[in-house]
């Protein structure tokens, strides 16, 4: 056993970055493999537990309910508020509709999410791990179910040790079927983001949904069941890359859950303290901080990758300190920098003051700049677009009357959820006229009128003919919406003629 004071002298961030969970392994006979020690966290009350409840309610609420929200977009578009329509290559989010060529909005959101994680880590440490990571939230749900079915920590430990018999089998079966129902709901909610939720829900239970829907639900049910129900902290400790990245991002200004060893050590009971005032620290070695830890880590060993900073140990310790009449905060959020000051006798700096430091503000600046830029782009984006692909083989066509024809595939994009009349016109090619596949050259003119269906790209093959003697040159095709909303877009196009290749 390594004594806690020695542990506490570890030099913070640099060490956590490279250390795996500390084991009581004797160095001479380190085993190759290690059995998982089951974790039975004790129920706890307190402000951080309340915060966890709130965040769990919000995140799960968002996850399970969002697909059922409706949003009226008129007769030509789906009425689901948030929908990733893979089949039609559309992404709907309330009033925003994103086309594949606007995917940079999604990329921007992902970049914001990434920088958001940096921002959160810089401001409040591993808050993502401790409160809102799906693995944490679902593990928390499953641990509540454990307590609901099997009782609190001690009862769970007894049941774990008890031999398998009818009672244990029944209890386990009951608990695992609750796991399974939750896992099924979790996997099931996922697919509702990708199709009309009420329809898919009915089809799913009627056995009419696409095989990929069942496969997705199956995989996600299995992962929720296994990762949330059984693997739990093993995911954070061994599988997830994020704790490694986060430990590298923590610095002396990061808020981490800290056991204030200079105040707590040496540990001693209340009686010892009464007998010998001044000889023992505030920690009475009640082990409540360890008992409530959802990953089974003893925070008094110092910061570690296994600590997801959920702060439940702070709640547990504060409760104990209150009972024995000592000041709260023996275990508390603190930065390494502030810890040094506190050791030297200063009062702890309020947390809100620790959150705002330069790095946090820089992240906040970048994050907001991207967000504002995206909002601006969203407000300024055109809902009409023309793109032109020229036929290159052959580049031009000599017609029998000596005139020259070029062919183009013109795509008119109507990104509104209603059919729109549009007009395409030629500028910069004197004497030219155009016609399309579905009309004859007789009706060729300098403008084409087309009604583009709602929410679609209308590909038209357009022939442009210019009189004999026209040189190869650039010209412009312009599309203009003829309705009240208006809007236009242009595309510069090459016109090839004989003799160009000279």
């Amino acid at each position: 056993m390594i004594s806690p004071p020695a542990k506490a002298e570890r030099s913070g961030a640099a060490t956590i970055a490279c250390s795996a969970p500390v084991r009581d392994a004797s160095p001479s006979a380190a085993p190759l493999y290690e059995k998982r020690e089951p974790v039975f966290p004790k129920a706890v009350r307190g402000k951080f537990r309340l915060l966890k409840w709130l965040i769990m309610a919000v995140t799960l609420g968002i996850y399970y309910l969002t697909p059922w929200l409706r949003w009226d977009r008129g007769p030509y578009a789906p009425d689901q508020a948030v929908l990733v329509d893979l089949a039609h290559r559309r992404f709907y989010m309330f009033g925003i509709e994103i086309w594949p060529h606007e995917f940079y909005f999604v990329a921007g959101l992902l970049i914001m999410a990434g920088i958001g994680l940096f921002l959160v880590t810089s401001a409040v440490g591993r808050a993502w791990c401790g409160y809102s990571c799906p693995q944490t939230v679902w593990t928390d749900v499953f641990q509540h179910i454990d307590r609901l079915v099997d009782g609190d920590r001690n009862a769970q430990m007894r049941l774990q040790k008890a031999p398998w018999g009818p009672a244990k089998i029944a209890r386990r079966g009951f608990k695992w079927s609750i796991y399974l129902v939750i896992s099924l709901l979790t996997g099931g909610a996922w697919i509702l983001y990708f199709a009309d939720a009420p329809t898919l829900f009915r089809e799913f239970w009627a056995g009419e949904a696409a095989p990929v829907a069942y496969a997705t639900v199956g995989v996600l049910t299995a992962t929720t069941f296994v990762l949330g129900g059984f693997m739990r902290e093993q995911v954070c400790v061994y599988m997830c890359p994020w704790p490694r990245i986060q430990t590298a991002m923590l610095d002396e200004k990061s808020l981490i859950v800290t056991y204030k060893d200079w105040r707590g050590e040496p540990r001693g009971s209340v009686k010892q303290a009464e007998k010998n005032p001044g000889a023992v620290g505030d920690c009475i070695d009640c082990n409540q901080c360890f008992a409530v830890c959802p990953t089974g880590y003893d925070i008094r060993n110092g910061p570690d990758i296994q600590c997801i900073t959920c702060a439940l140990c702070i709640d547990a310790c504060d409760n104990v300190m209150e009972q024995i009449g000592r000041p709260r905060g023996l275990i508390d959020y603190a930065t390494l920098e502030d810890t040094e000051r506190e050791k030297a006798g200063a009062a702890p700096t309020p947390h809100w003051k620790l959150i705002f430091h330069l790095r946090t503000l820089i992240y906040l600046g970048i994050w907001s700049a991207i967000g504002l830029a995206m909002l601006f782009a969203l407000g300024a984006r055109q809902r009409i677009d023309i793109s032109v692909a020229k036929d290159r083989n052959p580049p031009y066509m000599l017609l029998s009357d000596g005139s020259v024809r070029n062919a183009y595939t013109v795509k008119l994009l109507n990104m509104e959820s209603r059919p729109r009349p549009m007009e395409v016109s030629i500028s910069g090619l004197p004497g030219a006229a155009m016609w399309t596949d579905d009309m004859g050259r007789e009706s060729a003119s300098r403008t084409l009128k087309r009604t583009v269906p709602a929410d679609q790209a209308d590909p038209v093959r357009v022939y442009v003919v210019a009189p004999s003697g026209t040189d190869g040159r650039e010209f412009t095709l312009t599309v203009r919406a003829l309705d009240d909303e208006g809007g236009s877009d242009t595309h510069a196009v090459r016109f090839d003629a004989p003799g160009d290749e000279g």
Partner: protein
Amino acid sequence: MGNKHIDQATGVETVGHEWDGIEELNNPLPRWWLWALYASILWAIVYVVLYPAWPLVSKGTEGVLGWTSRGQLQGEMDAAQKARSGVLAKIAVMPVERLPEDPQLMKAAIAGGKAAFRVNCVQCHGAGAAGSKGYPNLNDDDWLWGGDLRAIEYTITHGIRQPDVDDKSHFSQMPAFGKDGLLTSAQIQDVVSYVRTLPGLEKPGAASARGAQVFAENCAVCHGPDGKGLRELGAPNLADAIWLFGGSREDVTRSVSYPPFGVMPAWGGRLDPVTIKMLSAYVHSLGGGEDFLASPGGASADFSADSAVKADAQP
């Protein structure tokens, strides 16, 4: 390797390697990781039994499922063929000139024709169907033997100048005015001048005036009095801007003296009627297709009659 020691900060033994001062702790692996390894091994064994795996001398082990990548491809091809069969059956019973009435079917036919064109036609007509000297450009509005859907279908089916293969093949032969001494060299130069005035490549002059006389006596019977050609004989329009064998003096002189004859295989014996219909639709769609007129009269009426019989005979 000999540098194993206990790491001060963690109390864990190091493995003994060191890279620029960075060392590795010898922490135990989680037990479930080992199970994952065993599960992978089990998976591999099952895979080796079920699927082709071990390479042997001439071929590999086959696996009890009998799966092959070629078999999978064949299955996918069959499925695609099956998916297409409905459309193909519809095209089969539809006379080619009525395809445009059904835009969906026409679109499918054009797509199918494009694929068939890539396999069978690009060798001469080019990937963009733009042809080259002596090989007609199929994108333009100049047609030797007719440019409506039915005429194109007839031409593809029976070919051009294939009397030995298909007696319905298009056939015509321009006399070799120079080689066979039908015209003198001077007369040929005159008629070349005249012909080149028709699309405006040369200005009229004394030579072209003499050439007009020669043209009227020798050429007009096929190319028409105004030089606009005659599709029944595949006689090209000489008054337009398009010259299959070149429009320069030298090229036209060569064409009059030693007339070139383009040939095209009769595809009727090589491709099925549905593919030919699709090819016709594709060629027609390239931008120069002409509308089919119910009774164009003359020789093309024969083509239509022939085509109609064929269409009716199909299931």
